[in-house]
């Protein structure tokens, strides 16, 4: 958990609440949507919304995977940052897609991270060739009753 602070600074240069990101290939399932914005809202922290600029009702819930898996960046193969024109994964913004289940549970997709180059604000969702990174990593276990 040592890299937490670094991440937040990388995400929001100038402490803006909304950060535009262009995905030239769209996202899997939403290939036509190139323009997105990262929306930071207090009520969903540490999550962020990745919202389509063209369809504001379309938003994915995302989280920085380095908050969950300390050595996550090290697990990304060295050739992958080139997908967004970078040579070092340490300089990238990383986002993992969160899926909410019934009863307050949630999983996070560690297999297919979103990479954003903060210098160009261009992003891509990659699928890593790593079986040890699950598509549905349990994040919050479902609870029967309210606390």
């Amino acid at each position, binding site marked *: 958990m040592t890299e*937490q602070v670094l991440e*937040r600074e990388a995400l929001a240069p100038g402490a803006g609440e909304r950060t535009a990101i262009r995905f030239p290939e769209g*996202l*899997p*399932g*939403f290939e036509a949507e190139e323009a997105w914005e990262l929306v930071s809202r207090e*009520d*969903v*922290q*540490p*999550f962020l*919304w990745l919202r389509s600029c063209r369809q504001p009702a*379309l*938003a*994915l*819930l*995302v989280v920085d995977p380095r*908050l*969950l898996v300390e050595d996550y960046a090290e697990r990304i193969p060295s*050739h992958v940052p*080139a*997908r967004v024109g970078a040579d070092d994964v340490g300089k990238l913004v990383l986002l993992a*897609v*969160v*899926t*909410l289940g019934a009863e*307050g*549970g*949630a*999983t996070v*997709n560690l*297999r*297919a991270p979103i990479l954003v180059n903060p210098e160009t604000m261009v992003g*891509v*969702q*990659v*699928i890593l060739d790593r079986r040890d990174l699950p*598509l*549905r990593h349990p*994040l*919050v276990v479902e*609870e029967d009753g309210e606390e």
Partner: protein
Amino acid sequence: MLVLSRKPGEAIIIGGGIRVRLLEVRGSHVRLGVEAPPEVNVVREELHRAVVATNRESARADDRSAALVASRLRSRGGGRQ
């Protein structure tokens, strides 16, 4: 759909920069070798479909549920305040 027959060792070229070679046929199993530029994502179709599914499920999250799960995560110390 374009259909081509290939023998082991033979390849096809896609768009000039991508080469798909048939390496081996063993029973019902075919091994392919793909050479592509680093910016091209090469992935098994079923894995791509699984990612489409998780993305679409994520897009169904509503504000209230997201806030609830987020508060649970924060109270557990898994997130940052």
